[in-house]
């Protein structure tokens, strides 16, 4: 970790700045020293690119709007914008919390708060997730922050899975959506908790630390707390938010392209219906606070398959995979998400068979 004293001297660092759209490290500020220190000629930076993009879009607003007028494209745009509008508050509050964890909560706190043994920390972290009403969009940066602050990854991952899947808001929504089936709430809570803990323990046995590639945060060292806090918020919103946009685009595409008629034919087969709704949960990427209502309306499907939908959705979906790949590393996400999917389908099917 770079400490304040061993940084390279300021002016050398800004030369050879990559073009704004090029790969730029997290803390590589292609903000020129010259800008702050007083005018120096420099190549085109991202601010200029941004200004150009904005001008172009405003100039070509009319043709752009016409291109988006076809009903299918328009529905895509509506769904895309609404997924983002819905997620923005959850993202922002999750990021505020994760920045607070990163900056204000001392490392020693986690050592005291969680059991020393990782295998015991996993269930504690899962249950901690129950208390926090959060959406999956917020819990990804929080989990990243926890790992960076020295929480054992197994516990942080259990928290990542449990927080959006089992919390008071989600369980209440489930109870409201399934008025005739109180067992659904219990089954959802137990199955989701079980998946979170199994995945935590699985990580202890099989996980490798080098799969996790957390963005380094040298900019948070050696600066005032206020500055570090806002830098963390800025970084996480831009970062996780960008991946959220990727996920929202994928979800909107699925929403427009997969006609519901196809589902009808799958609903009659008990095995196919479970798999179909599991895959649908991944593709649709609905916020965990809303998925119960969608599940309730898929009434041609069996209760067990709808339980699978509710357990898989908050833990694995396109939006989440995209965010996990960005925040925790691609090598991690492409192993963790499929494993979670398999465990979630298995556990939820079992819970459905026993409890529903």
């Amino acid at each position, binding site marked *: 970790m*770079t400490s304040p004293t061993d940084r390279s001297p300021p002016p050398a660092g800004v030369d050879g700045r990559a073009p704004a759209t090029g790969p730029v490290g997290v803390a*590589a500020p292609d903000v020129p020293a010259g800008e702050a220190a007083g005018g120096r000629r420099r190549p085109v930076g991202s601010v200029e690119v941004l200004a150009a993009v904005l001008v172009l879009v405003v100039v070509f607003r009319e043709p752009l709007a016409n291109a988006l007028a076809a009903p299918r494209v328009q529905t895509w745009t509506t769904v895309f*914008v609404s997924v983002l509008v819905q997620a923005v508050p959850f*993202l922002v509050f999750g990021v505020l919390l994760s920045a607070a964890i990163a900056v204000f909560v001392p490392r020693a706190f986690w050592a005291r708060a969680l059991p020393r043994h990782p295998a015991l920390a996993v269930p504690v972290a899962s249950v901690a997730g129950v208390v926090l009403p959060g959406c999956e969009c917020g819990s990804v940066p929080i989990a990243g922050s926890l790992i960076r602050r020295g929480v054992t990854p197994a516990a942080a991952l259990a928290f990542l899975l449990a927080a959006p899947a089992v919390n008071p808001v989600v369980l209440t929504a489930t109870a409201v959506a399934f008025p005739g089936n109180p067992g659904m709430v219990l089954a959802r809570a137990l199955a989701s908790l079980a998946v979170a803990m199994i995945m935590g323990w699985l990580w202890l046995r099989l996980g490798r630390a080098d799969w996790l590639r957390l*963005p380094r945060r040298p900019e948070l060292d050696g600066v005032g707390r206020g500055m570090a806090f806002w830098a963390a918020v800025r970084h996480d919103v831009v970062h996780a938010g960008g991946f959220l946009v990727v996920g929202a685009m994928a979800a909107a595409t699925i929403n427009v392209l997969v006609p519901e008629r196809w589902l009808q034919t799958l609903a009659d087969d008990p095995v196919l219906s479970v798999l179909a709704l599991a895959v649908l949960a991944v593709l649709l990427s609905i916020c965990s606070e809303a998925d119960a209502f969608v599940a309730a309306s898929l009434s041609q499907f069996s209760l067990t398959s709808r339980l699978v939908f509710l357990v898989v959705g908050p833990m694995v979906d396109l939006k989440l995979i995209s965010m996990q790949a960005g925040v925790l590393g691609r090598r991690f996400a492409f192993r963790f998400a499929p494993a979670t999917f398999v465990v979630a389908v298995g556990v939820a099917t079992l819970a459905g068979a026993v409890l529903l």
Partner: protein
Amino acid sequence: MNRQAQAVVLLLLGGAVVRASVTDLYLRYVKEGLRPFLIAAGLVLVATAVTTLWYELRPPATGEHEPGDGPGEHGHEPGDGAGHHEPRVGWLLLLPVFGLLLVAPPALGSYAAEQAGTALAAEAQPSDYPPLPPGDPAPVTVLDYASRALFDRGTSIGDRRVRLTGFIVAGPDGQPLLARMVLSCCAADGRPVKLGLTGDVPLGLPNDTWVEATGRYSARVGRDPVNDAEIPYLAVESWREVPAPRNQYE
């Protein structure tokens, strides 16, 4: 994307979210209850942008930095050979900004309603419906009428007149249906509730025309081919075109 550009994007995003939530634009995408959270989140985004710009642009050597922290932020060299490309993904945040500020797509309408099956497919719920609201005709929502008509077989409606507002969707047989989208969270989970029309059917209206229909309970029931669910009917006595309501969802 450098920090100043990030700040500008966050400012635009926060501004777009606040603007959408102080006007009624946000009602096209999410439930009304999200409004305070949207405003708060938008303000946090604006505050983040402003503090970022302030830290970036203020004159160096203010003495607030730790020793060794040079002017501006450029002292923080990444030394990150792994190539963490995170800021590039931030450019994508411009898409929702354009979506909200320039395009502002309309609320879900007939296209989405045709694609999805009617939402009232839930298993018969206990039919304990309260009496209709007072008035003749009684103002009811499409969702309320449809659930009373289906699960209560019209008992709680009786022979009272009802008035409801929805938009026109061409049904599978070419006959117009009256529909309304129902949201539980955001437009991504929006599902239509569809009503068949008998009696004075509003013919010849294009899809997405908003109609206020007055009528009585009809025992006729159709089927939605999309999800094989039942579609209740309304015996229309009169109807008129109306402008789209403020909140197009129920």
